[in-house]
Each structure stands twice: as structure tokens, then as C-alpha cells.
């Protein structure tokens, strides 16, 4: 029996620890999906509603898909039904983080780097994240991105979803996902670089 099947069995048996494990493991991914579709203001409510739908349908979970895919599909459907007709445009808005991006100004007219590219002080994420100030700074940057950009970034980097899964869950085209992801990554890069150079946010 896989860990996932084991978890399902324990959920079906009503084991409290299993519920706790389920929510702690998947709430972040569900929040990212809900935020992308209904916006941050309504996301928490959609996630709660989704959890109840999960509980209601638990017996029907046939391990055809992974548990995560199943949970995120329920979340996306709950969020979309909330939207009804007022589907927001997918805006490829140009919101960048507080430290900008790696934009045209960084390049000379011949397309080469215009100046040095600062070397960061460590190759290890743990060492970089050791500083509370940087962790706060990154949170700040994530919060400055558009909801869609942030969600796509988190679903890809933190949750490890494939681009195709992100497209399907959020109903956005493959090329839009790529653009959103790229811009979000460059904003994060710019924040890390700024912090490495100046030592502050």
C-alpha cells in the first residue's frame, strides 16, 4: 500500500491525525489555485468549501489520478463555480516586484550584459534563507506580484506541478503560463540580487 492509499484508508476510517496531515500537506497548493481563480480576498473561503467537498466525495476518490491532482481539481471547480459569469480576464499584467526585473536596462544595445552580474554569497538556499530579513523580503516580493503570477510561481516551484496541469487547473494557455512564470521568476531573481548587493530589502 502506498503512503497515499494508506492516508485515504485512515481518512475513511475517520482518523483525526489523517485529516490534520491531509490539510497541512495540501492547503498551500489549494490556496494557490483558489487565489489564481477568485483572488486573494475570496480564496480562503473557497478553500474551506473545497475541503468540505473533498470530505463529501472521499469515498468516490478512485486512485486514477494522484491525490494532489484530485484535490486541486476540486478546488479549481469550486473556485470556478464561484466565479459564475464574471470570469476575470487573464491579464498578463506587468506587475513586477519591488526590485524590478531583469529588463532592457540591464543590456547594452548589442544585447550583451551592460554591466557585471553580481555573484551571490552562497550557492545554498538554506544559507540564503538563514536571514530573516531576506525571508521577509521575499514574502514582500511575492505579495507584490499579481495574484495569478504568484499562484503560477508557487504551483510550479513549490508544488512542482507540470505546466500542463497548471494550464488545465487555471484555464490559461500554455504560452500565458510560460510568460507569467518567467516574469515572476525574474522578479524573485531581482529581489535576491538586490538583497545580496545591498544587504537590505
Amino acid at each position, binding site marked *: 500500500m502506498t503512503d497515499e492509499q494508506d492516508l485515504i484508508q485512515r481518512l475513511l476510517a475517520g482518523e483525526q491525525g489523517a485529516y490534520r496531515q491531509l*490539510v497541512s500537506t495540501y492547503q498551500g497548493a489549494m490556496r494557490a489555485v483558489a487565489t489564481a481563480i477568485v483572488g486573494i480576498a475570496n480564496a480562503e473561503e473557497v478553500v474551506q468549501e473545497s475541503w468540505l467537498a473533498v470530505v463529501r466525495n472521499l469515498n468516490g476518490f478512485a486512485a486514477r489520478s494522484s491525490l494532489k491532482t484530485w484535490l486541486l481539481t476540486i478546488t479549481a471547480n469550486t473556485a470556478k463555480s464561484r466565479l459564475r459569469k464574471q470570469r476575470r480576464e487573464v491579464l498578463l499584467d506587468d506587475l513586477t516586484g519591488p526590485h524590478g526585473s531583469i529588463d532592457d536596462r540591464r543590456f547594452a544595445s548589442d*544585447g*550583451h550584459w551592460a554591466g557585471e552580474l553580481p555573484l551571490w554569497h552562497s550557492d545554498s538556499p538554506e544559507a540564503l534563507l538563514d536571514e530573516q530579513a531576506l525571508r521577509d523580503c521575499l514574502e514582500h516580493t511575492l505579495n507584490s506580484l499579481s495574484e495569478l503570477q504568484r499562484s503560477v510561481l508557487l504551483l510550479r516551484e*513549490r508544488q512542482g506541478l507540470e505546466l500542463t496541469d497548471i494550464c488545465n487547473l487555471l484555464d490559461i494557455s500554455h504560452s500565458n503560463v510560460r510568460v507569467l512564470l*518567467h516574469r515572476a521568476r525574474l522578479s524573485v531573481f531581482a529581489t535576491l540580487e538586490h538583497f545580496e548587493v545591498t544587504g537590505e530589502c
Partner: protein
Amino acid sequence: MLTCKELVGRSSDLLDGELKFKQRLAVAAHLAVCLRCRRFIRQLRLSQRVIRQLPEADVAELDALLKAMQAFRRDHH
């Protein structure tokens, strides 16, 4: 030859394995001779791992949610 600016434009596609064969070759050829772009890609991958490891916010009101879920399940089965 690809410029540095073009390489940066394709960097996410490189990370995600979205480049076609020819594009991949062009990127590899550029990286072989360009120190700054190699550094850029290395640090872009590093920033990916940083986001992966950035601590997630805790679930707000976890206990209340768990209670609601279990009550809901009892009512529906």
C-alpha cells in the same frame, strides 16, 4: 549567435525543459562562452530552490477546520 538578452528571455523555458532541440543547442553554445549568462542561469536555478524552501504560512484556524470537516463527514455518511 544568441545575445545575452535573448538568452535571458528563454531562461525559464530552459529551466522547464520547454526549448526545442535547436533552441537548446543555441543556448548551450552561448553558455559555453559566456560567463555572465552561466552565472545568471545558475543563480536563477538557485532562486527557484529558494522559493521551494521558503517556509509556507501555517493554516489559519486549523483546528476549527478539522472539526468542521469531521462533523461534515459524519453528517454525510
